[in-house]
């Protein structure tokens, strides 16, 4: 099970005013808000946490087929930085998913997995060929053995990422 999310930082700056009254309270827990206020770059931390929640939500949505908007129930924790890649976990209604986040000056990209060893199995796809959505959830169809693989697509501004496992 996988999920991904990409944030175009230039577009995010244009589209969202995260300093707006009430904005952080609606989507970040008190602990997450503390991480934002303690961060060297608060804006980057906002989108770092947000992309982790989004990527984890995509796994939850695939597993349960439940759609909803409950960012406060997707809590980011256990953040570790190894070789400039940020590893973390997100707790979603009792389940824990693992996240791996890359931050550049242009974008923030998170991949979430259910099993931590799946990070090594992630493949990047170049296009949407053979991808179909069922109930809004994308899958890759393999014609040769009539099987499907989970796919996650994220597109924001200048960036798009399609992954499979």
């Amino acid at each position, binding site marked *: 099970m996988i999920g991904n999310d990409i944030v175009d930082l230039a577009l*995010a700056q244009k*589209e*969202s*005013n995260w300093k*707006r*009254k*009430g*904005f952080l309270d*609606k*989507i970040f827990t008190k602990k997450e808000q503390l991480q934002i206020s303690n961060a060297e770059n608060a804006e980057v931390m906002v989108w770092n946490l*947000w992309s982790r929640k*989004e990527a984890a939500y995509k796994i939850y949505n695939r597993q349960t087929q439940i*759609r*909803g*908007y*409950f*960012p*406060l*129930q997707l809590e980011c924790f256990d953040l570790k930085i190894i070789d400039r890649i940020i590893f973390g976990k997100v707790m979603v209604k009792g389940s824990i998913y693992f996240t791996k986040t890359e931050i550049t000056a242009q974008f923030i990209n998170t991949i979430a997995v259910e099993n931590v060893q799946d990070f090594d199995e992630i493949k990047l796809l170049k296009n949407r060929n053979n991808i179909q959505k069922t109930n*809004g959830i994308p899958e890759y169809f393999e014609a040769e053995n009539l099987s499907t693989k989970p796919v996650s697509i994220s597109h*924001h501004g200048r960036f798009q990422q399609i992954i499979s496992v």
Partner: protein
Amino acid sequence: MNKPEIIEKLKTIVKPYVKNQEAFDNLTENTDFITDLQINSANLVDVILDIEEEFSIIIDNQSMERMPDVKSAMEIIETKLSEM
């Protein structure tokens, strides 16, 4: 406030965040904010905050969970308005 009035106000609120103009022009109760109107999920927070300001209501977390489509948003607004 009746249903058509609420839907008109809601349309004014979501308009700036909409990425799919055609879906917006054909908006019905079954329209989904994210999959149809292609509103960025981070902007859904702005929609919620704008609804709170416009209707002078508070959308609690439980109600927010059901937000992604127009029908649920309308129900939430109607319920909150009736509680006032």
